[in-house]
C-alpha cells in the first residue's frame, strides 16, 4: 500500500507500524519504550507523529499504517509534543549527568540535545528513592528511572523471570521487585538483560572497577586477566568501532597496559569445558542418564533452574563455567608452575555478563580462595581503558600469555548461542568415532532463533539436540522434562537471547544489528582458526598429561566440576 510521510509517497506493508515504515525510509522517529521484538506498549509517547487525515497525534510504534495515510513526523505540533514530554521527564529526573555512568551514552540525554531542551520549564516535586545496591550483580537507582518499562517487559516476556514490575500508581509509580525489596532477595537471575536494555542510568552493573584498580596497585598481588569469547567482538564499539569489529589483540594489549601481569584467554577453558562436558555427555548416555543433559556455562541460566526447576538440577552438567575452570586452574596448576602462592593470585574475568559477578561469589566455586576474584563487564573494561588514557585504536595487536592463551575455533563460538553445542558435538564425534567431523558447520543450530533443534548423527548414534537462548524459551522444554516427555539428549541453554554476544555486560544499548554483526564475527574467528576442535588444543592435552590426568577424572572433578543448590521461587 502507499502512504505519505512528510509529503513523500512511499510504499508500506499492510499491518506494519508507522515506525517500521518510516525507519525503512530512513526517517528517524525517536523512541524510548520501543523494543523491536516485542508487542508495542505505547507508554513513552515520544514517537508521536501527526496523522493528517484525522488531525490526531498517534504513537508511531503502535499505530498500523492504512492505505493513503498521510503522516508528518516533524510538524511543529509533533516537535512541541515531543519536547514537552522530554521536559516532563527531565523535571522528574535527578539531572546529575556529571556523576552518571551513562553520561554520553544516555538516551534521555541525547533527546534533550536533539530537541534543544535548554530550560527547566516544569518544576516541582521530584521522585525520591533509595539506590538498591544489595544485589551482587545489578544496581538500581529508581530516581533515574523514566519508567519506559523495557526492563519489565524483558524480565517478564523474554526471560520469564518477572523479578521486577511496576508498583504504585500515578506520580508514585516506580519499577521495583516484589514488596519493593532489594533485588538480591527476589528470584532475580542477574542476567542483566534489564541493564543492557535500560535507556538511562537507572540500571547498572555492580562495578568491580575499584577493587580491580586496588589489586593492580597492590604490591603483593599477582593480578591476571582472562577474556571471554564475546568480549573481543564488542569492546571495539565502546571506542567507536563498527559493531562486530574483532579487537582481540588490542584488548590483550590494553589489559597489559592497565597493569595486568598476565592476560589469558577464556577460550582456552572453553575448550577445556568441551572436553569435560563431551566426556560427561557420553558417560550419561552410556550410563543411562539423567538426560537430556543441560549445559551449565551461563550463570543466569543456572540460577534460573535453581529457583524455578530445582527438581531438574540432576540434568544440569556439573561442569563449572569456563572462566571458573580457568580461575581454579590459575590458582593451582599455574600457581605451581610459576611458583607463586595462590593467595597472591588475583583473577579478573572480563565478561560480557553481569551474572558472572554473582557467580564469582558463589561459595562452592573455589576452595580456600574464590576461583575468580573480580568480574569486569565489557563496559567496565572500556571505562578503565578510557580512564587510563590509553588510545585503544593505536594499540598493537598482542597475543595471550601461555599456557592458557591457546584456543581453538570451538572455544571461540561459545560466545554465540548454539556455539557450546556445536563445539561439544565436534568433540563428541571424535570421541565416538575416533575421527574429526568432515563439515564443522551445524546450520540448524546457528542463526538468531531462540529455539534451535537438530538431529545429529554421530557415528552410529543419532543425538537429538537443542540450543535455547532467552530464558522464556526454555520453559516449555523444562515442563516437558518434568512430564518425562522430552525427546532430547543434550540441550544448550543461554540465559541471554543470542548468547553471550548479547549479554547483560555488553555495550549499551542492545540492538538487533549489533547482535547480527557480533555473531558473524564470532563465526569468522572460528573459520579462521588453525584448529577448530577443542580436543586438538595442544595446551589442553599438555594440561591433562601434566596435571589433571583424564577428563572427568578425580582431579578434574575436584577443580572443574561443581554442585548446585535448590533455591526458593519466591
Amino acid at each position, binding site marked *: 500500500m502507499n502512504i505519505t510521510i512528510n509529503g513523500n509517497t512511499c510504499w508500506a506493508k499492510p499491518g506494519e507500524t508507522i515506525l517500521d515504515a518510516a525507519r525503512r525510509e530512513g526517517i528517524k522517529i525517536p523512541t524510548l519504550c520501543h523494543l523491536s521484538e516485542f508487542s508495542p506498549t505505547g507508554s513513552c509517547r515520544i514517537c508521536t507523529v501527526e496523522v493528517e487525515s484525522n488531525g490526531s497525534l498517534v504513537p508511531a510504534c503502535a*499505530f498500523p499504517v492504512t492505505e493513503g495515510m498521510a503522516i508528518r513526523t516533524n510538524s511543529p505540533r509533533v516537535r*512541541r509534543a515531543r519536547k514537552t514530554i522530554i521536559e516532563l521527564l527531565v*523535571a522528574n529526573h535527578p539531572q546529575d549527568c556529571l556523576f552518571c555512568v551513562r553520561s554520553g551514552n544516555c538516551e534521555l540525554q541525547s533527546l534533550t540535545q536533539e530537541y534543544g531542551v535548554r530550560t527547566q520549564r516544569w518544576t516541582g516535586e521530584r521522585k525520591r528513592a533509595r539506590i538498591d545496591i544489595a544485589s551482587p550483580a545489578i544496581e538500581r537507582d529508581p530516581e533515574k528511572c*523514566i*519508567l519506559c518499562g523495557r526492563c519489565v517487559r524483558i524480565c517478564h516476556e523474554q526471560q520469564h523471570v518477572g523479578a521486577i514490575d*511496576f508498583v504504585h*500508581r*500515578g*506520580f508514585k*509509580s516506580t519499577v521495583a521487585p516484589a514488596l519493593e525489596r532489594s533485588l538480591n532477595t527476589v528470584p532475580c537471575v542477574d542476567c542483566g538483560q534489564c541493564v543492557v536494555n535500560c535507556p538511562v542510568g537507572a540500571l547498572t552493573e555492580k562495578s568491580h572497577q575499584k577493587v580491580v584498580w586496588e589489586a593492580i596497585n597492590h604490591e603483593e598481588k599477582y593480578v591476571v586477566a582472562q577474556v571471554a569469547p564475546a568480549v573481543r567482538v564488542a569492546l571495539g564499539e565502546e571506542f567507536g568501532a563498527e559493531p562486530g569489529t574483532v579487537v582481540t589483540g588490542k584488548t590483550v594489549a590494553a589489559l597489559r597496559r592497565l597493569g595486568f601481569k598476565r592476560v589469558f584467554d577464556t577460550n582456552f577453558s572453553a575448550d577445556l569445558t568441551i572436553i569435560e562436558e563431551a566426556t560427561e555427555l557420553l558417560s550419561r548416555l552410556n550410563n543411562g542418564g539423567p538426560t537430556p543433559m543441560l549445559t551449565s556455562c551461563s550463570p543466569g541460566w543456572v540460577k534460573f533452574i535453581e529457583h524455578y526447576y530445582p527438581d531438574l538440577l540432576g540434568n544440569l552438567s556439573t561442569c563449572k563455567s569456563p572462566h571458573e575452570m580457568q580461575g581454579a586452574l590459575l590458582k593451582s596448576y599455574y600457581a605451581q608452575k610459576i611458583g607463586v602462592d595462590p593467595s597472591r593470585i588475583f583473577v579478573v574475568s572480563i565478561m560480557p555478563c553481569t551474572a558472572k559477578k554473582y557467580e564469582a561469589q558463589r561459595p562452592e566455586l573455589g576452595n580456600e580462595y574464590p576461583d575468580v576474584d573480580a568480574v569486569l563487564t565489557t563496559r567496565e573494561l572500556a571505562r578503565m581503558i578510557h580512564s587510563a588514557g590509553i588510545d585503544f585504536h593505536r594499540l598493537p595487536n598482542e597475543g595471550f600469555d601461555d599456557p592458557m592463551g591457546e584456543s581453538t575455533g570451538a572455544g571461540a563460538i561459545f560466545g554465540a548461542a548454539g556455539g557450546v553445542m556445536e563445539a561439544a558435538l565436534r568433540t563428541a564425534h571424535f570421541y565416538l568415532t575416533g575421527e574429526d567431523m568432515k563439515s564443522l558447520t551445524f546450520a540448524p543450530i546457528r542463526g538468531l532463533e531462540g529455539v534451535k533443534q537438530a538431529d545429529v548423527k554421530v557415528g552410529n548414534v543419532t543425538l537429538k539436540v537443542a540450543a535455547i537462548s532467552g530464558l522464556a524459551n526454555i520453559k516449555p522444554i523444562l515442563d516437558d522434562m518434568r512430564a518425562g516427555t522430552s525427546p532430547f539428549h543434550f540441550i544448550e541453554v543461554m540465559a541471554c537471547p543470542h548468547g553471550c554476544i548479547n549479554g547483560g555486560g555488553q555495550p549499551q544499548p542492545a540492538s538487533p544489528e549489533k547482535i547480527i554483526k557480533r555473531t558473524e564475527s564470532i563465526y569468522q574467528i572460528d573459520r579462521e582458526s588453525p584448529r577448530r576442535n577443542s580436543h586438538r588444543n595442544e595446551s589442553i592435552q599438555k594440561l591433562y598429561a601434566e596435571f589433571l590426568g583424564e577428563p572427568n577424572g578425580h582431579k578434574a572433578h575436584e577443580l572443574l566440576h561443581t554442585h548446585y543448590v535448590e533455591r526458593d521461587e519466591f
Partner: protein
Amino acid sequence: MNSYSRDCFENCWHSAERPCPHFVSCVNNGQQCECGDAVTARLEQYKRHLLMVEHDLPVILVGMGTCGLANGARRIHDAIIAELNTRGIAASVIPVGCVGYCAREVIVDIKLPGKPRISYCEVKEKDVVALIESTIMAGEVLTDKLLGLYERPQDSPWAALPLVNENPFFAKQQKINLENCGVIDPESIDQYLARGGYTALSTVINGKSGQDVINDMLTAGVRGRGGGGFPTGRKWQFARDQQSDKKYLICNADEGDPGAFMDRALLEGDPHRVVEGMIIAAYAIGASYGYIYCRAEYPLAIARLEKTLADAREYGLLGNNILGSGFNFDMRIKKGAGAFVCGEETALIHSIEGRRGMPRPRPPYPAVSGLFGKPTVINNVETFANVTTVFKNGAEWYGSIGTQTSKGTKIFALSGKVTNVGLVEVPMGTTLREIVFDIGGGIPDGKQFKAVQIGGPSGGALPVQVIDTPIDYESLKAVGAMMGSGGLVVMDETTCMVDLAKYFMTFIQSESCGKCIPCREGTKRLLEILERLSKSHRNETTQEESLLRFQGMVYLERLASVIKDTSLCGLGQTAANPVLSTLQYFKEEYEAHLYDRCCPAGACRELLTFHIDTEKCNGCGLCAKKCPEAAIIGEKKKAHYILEDKCIRCDQCRVNCNFDAIYVN
C-alpha cells in the same frame, strides 16, 4: 403457588436442564403449552399476587439501596419486623432498591390489599410505630411523611392526596430504565418476570437473528452510556464480524467517577435488567462467556448480582441452551480492586486477565482482539439496561425518545449543592436547567448557582451562561464538557473553581496508572501549577517561587494540550479537561488568584485575610484569647486588630466572636 420455579416447573417440563422456549411468554401472556387450564389460572393468580394487584397481606417495601442503608434503612427494616411481631400482625416486608430520591431516604412503601401503594419518605426509626398504627392497623395515610401515592383512587378519602409522579422530582423524569428500581424486590426473579422481565430476551431468542438484533440496535440509535457515546450497534457489528472460536462480553461496572452512582443503583435495584441486556448482546455478537467487572466497593450490588445469576441459571435463562434455543452463554462476576483506570476498557481487560490494570494502545480494538486475545465487547451497566428496554418496548419506540443524534434517556446522579440529591432519568435533550432547578429543586440555603460539573473528572464545569444546553453528546462537547457516565455535581457560589480544578487534578494524578509520561508526569505538574495559585505569598521563601506561579500559568495551556494530544488512554486524554473548562468559563477567578492572591469564593484558605470590624468590636478580647498564634492585639474595651503576617487562617476568632465583628476577605 409461590414461585415459578417450584410450582410451574413441576407442572410443565421446563427446567434448567431442558428449558422451554415459551417459558417467558407463559408467565407473561398466559399459558402457551398444553399443561391445562388449572396451570393457566394459577399462573395468572400468581402474577396478580406478584404485581400486588391481588394480595391478602399488607406489603411493606423498604428502600434498601446503599443510600437507604446509609440512612438507617436496615434498622428501620428490623424495627418494622419487630413491631409487627410484637403486635402479631401478618405482613410481608420486602427490601427494595433505590427509587432515586436519595435526599429523602429512608423511603418506605406500604401496600394494603385493595388500596393504592403509599410511599413514605424520610422515615426514621421512631416513625415505625406511627406508620404501623396509622396505615396498617387503621388504614389511614400518615400525611406528614407522605411522598405520594402510586395511583389515585376514585371516590375515596385518599382522592385528594398527591401522587408520587406529581412530585417535582419525579414529574419531569422519564423512567424507562429505572422503572423497576425501588419498586420491585431486586432479589426476586419472579417479580421481575411478572413485570415483563425477560420478554426482551424471549422475543430476541425466539425470533431474531444476531444480525437482526444489531440492526434493531442501530435503528434504536443506542449510544454507549459509559462516556464516549460510540454507537453500540456498530461496536457489536465489529465483534460479530470477527471469526473466532471464542468471543467475550464484558459489563463494565467499575463506576469510579467522583459523584457517580447510576450503575450502583441499577445493579442494586434491578440487576436482572442488566443481565438480560447482556444475554441479548452476547446472542448478537456470538459470545459464549461474559464477565461483570464490578468494583469491590459495591458489596451489595455484587451480592445481588450473585443471586441474580444463580436465579437466571435456575430458570434456564443463563447457561447452556438458553430458553431451548441452543444458544449457550454464561458469565461470572470479577471484582475490581479499586483502581479508577480499570474503568478504561483495555486496562479492565488486563485486570480480568490477572495483570496490572494498565491501558494498551488501540488499535487493535477489543472488538477485534480483546480479553485473552479474543473479540470482546465491553459496554457499561446502563448501556445493557438500555438494551433490555429497546427489545422490551421496540426499537422504533426507543428511537422516538430523545434528540436527533442522542436517543433514549440518560440517568444522572445528581449531587452537590442541590436540594434534591438523587438519581434521575431524563430523556436526552432535557436541559441542565430543568435537571438542576426543576428536578433538583435548585440550590439550597438561598445561595446562587455557580456551575455544574458533568462527566466526572474527564468532563467540564458548566456555568450559568450555558445552563440551557440540552443534554446530548454533541451539545455537551460543544460547550467543553462531555456526557461521561452521568455524574452531575452542582456547585454554588461558595465553590472556588480553582479549588475544584485542583480537586479533580489531585484525583486524576493519583489515579493515573503511571504508564504514559504525559499523564503520569504532566498531571502532577498541572496540579502543582494550580497549587501555587492558591498559595499565600507568606509561604513563598524565594522570589523564584513567586515567579513560578506566573511561569506555570504561561505554560499551562501548552501542557494541557500536550497531555490531551499524546496521552495513551481516554483518561489521560481528558485529564486536563477540568482545568481547561474552568479556565474557559471562570478565567477572572483564576486571575484573581494569580494577580490579587485572592479567592473570590472564599474557599482557598491561604488566600483569605481576616479583619475585625472596628464598629462591631467591643474589645471583649475573646478572639485574642482563642487565637493560637497571638495574632490579635488590642486594648481592653477597644476595637482589636489582626496581624496578617501572624494569622494562620484557622478561623477560630471568627467562629468564637459573639458580635459577628470578624469578617473574611
